[in-house]
């Protein structure tokens, strides 16, 4: 097959990869904030649950988590289709890493900011919402960018539970045509371009959110 015939088929796969990415990114982001903030501010039993979640999903492989959710949950009477299982597994996995990013960024806000908010009689909720989170958000962007790229790369795992993503398309095409060199080379290139675009978008976001911020200017 010509390269001009291979490319559209691979781009179809890339579209599915992108779809999984767009579905699991918000799941991961939400879990990161929920688990990260729970670990910092919630009552002790909830804190422990968040901690177990974080340690468990960071301590085992994404692929095992994916297999577990796809193959084992039916034993609990919970049948998930491959797509749902993928989004849940990837979201849970990257969310656990993201939770530590959130925790680190919140802890990095200078203590004086908490004290000032307390002194001004802010409620705990508005302390968090109006003082702490806006400041910590800018610190989260670069590590979140890295995690988003990690998530993009991890989507390749879903090919192993027979979702027709980019990697799956590459594998089946390579099996059928035996043009392994061109196909896998092209696929690596597509992933590379996606990663570069994402890195660029996150740099843009960081510049945008960082505008007008006098970072650490008052602390010196």
């Amino acid at each position, binding site marked *: 097959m010509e390269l001009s015939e291979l490319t559209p088929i691979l781009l179809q796969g890339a579209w599915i990869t992108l779809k999984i990415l767009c579905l699991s990114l918000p799941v991961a982001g939400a879990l990161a904030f929920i688990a990260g903030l729970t670990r910092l501010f919630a009552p002790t039993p909830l804190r422990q649950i968040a901690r177990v979640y974080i*340690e*468990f999903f*960071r*301590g*085992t*492989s*994404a*692929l*095992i*988590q994916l*297999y*577990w959710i796809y*193959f*084992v949950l039916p*034993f*609990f*009477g919970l049948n998930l289709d491959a797509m749902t299982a993928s989004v849940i597994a990837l979201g849970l996995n990257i969310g656990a890493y993201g939770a530590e990013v959130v925790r680190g960024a919140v802890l990095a806000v200078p203590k004086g900011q908490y004290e000032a908010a307390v002194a001004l009689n802010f409620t705990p909720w508005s302390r968090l919402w109006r003082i702490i989170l806006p400041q910590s958000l800018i610190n989260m962007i670069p590590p979140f960018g890295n995690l988003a*790229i990690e998530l993009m*790369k*991890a*989507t*390749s*795992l879903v*090919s*192993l539970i027979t979702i027709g993503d980019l*990697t799956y398309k*590459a*594998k089946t095409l*390579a099996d059928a045509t035996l043009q*392994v*060199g061109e196909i*896998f*080379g092209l*696929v*690596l290139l597509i*992933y*590379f371009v996606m*990663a*570069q675009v994402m*890195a660029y978008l996150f740099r843009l976001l960081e510049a945008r959110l960082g505008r007008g911020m006098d970072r650490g200017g008052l602390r010196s």
Partner: protein
Amino acid sequence: MIELDWDWDFTWEVLPDLLNAAQITLLATLLGSLLAIGVGLALSLLRRSPSRWISWPVYWVVEFVRSTPLLVQIFFLYYVMPEFGVSLSPMTTGVLALGAHYGAYLSEVFRSGIDGVEKGQWEAARALNLSQFMTYRDIVLPQALRAMIPATGNYIIAMFKETPQLSAITLLEMLQTAKILGSENFRYLEPFTLVGLLYLAFSIIAALGVHQIERRFPKEGFSLR
């Protein structure tokens, strides 16, 4: 109501096989991390080369390897190398893929570690007429080491956790073994859960090990200030 029917007999039946497979997993990690450290060190030194003709390509190679999925790289090595007349066993492919992938990550760790050593140390060593090689080996790297150890440890643990991807090229590591045991018996609950728990246990042990190694190095590096 969710009912968990955990089969203990089946558990004891599959556990020895999984522990056997754990040896393959650990071997792949060990060889992979040795290779990754070598690759990482070589790439980081090349990246520091004063010649743009060397440092610029190395930068993009590292960037490329880091931003593409390990699974595709594994497939690439396993299926494309035979085209060049080199057929690799799953184990060799796995070690090469892990070594190259994490070598690229480690090169950045090593580079920043080396950059973190004070410039004066380098100048002093050169003033004492040490060769470039000796300066790196005896002066710069030992000081950079402390800064590099925690991150290197993290990446080796990360590598260990990515070894299940080698099951995709039929390496009989833990996950592949669990998959076979599961499909033979139509029960995935116990084998997959056990593999997850084994990974968790090994990761925790490895993290404690890295922490111990870190503690053996004095806080302020080796400088006498």
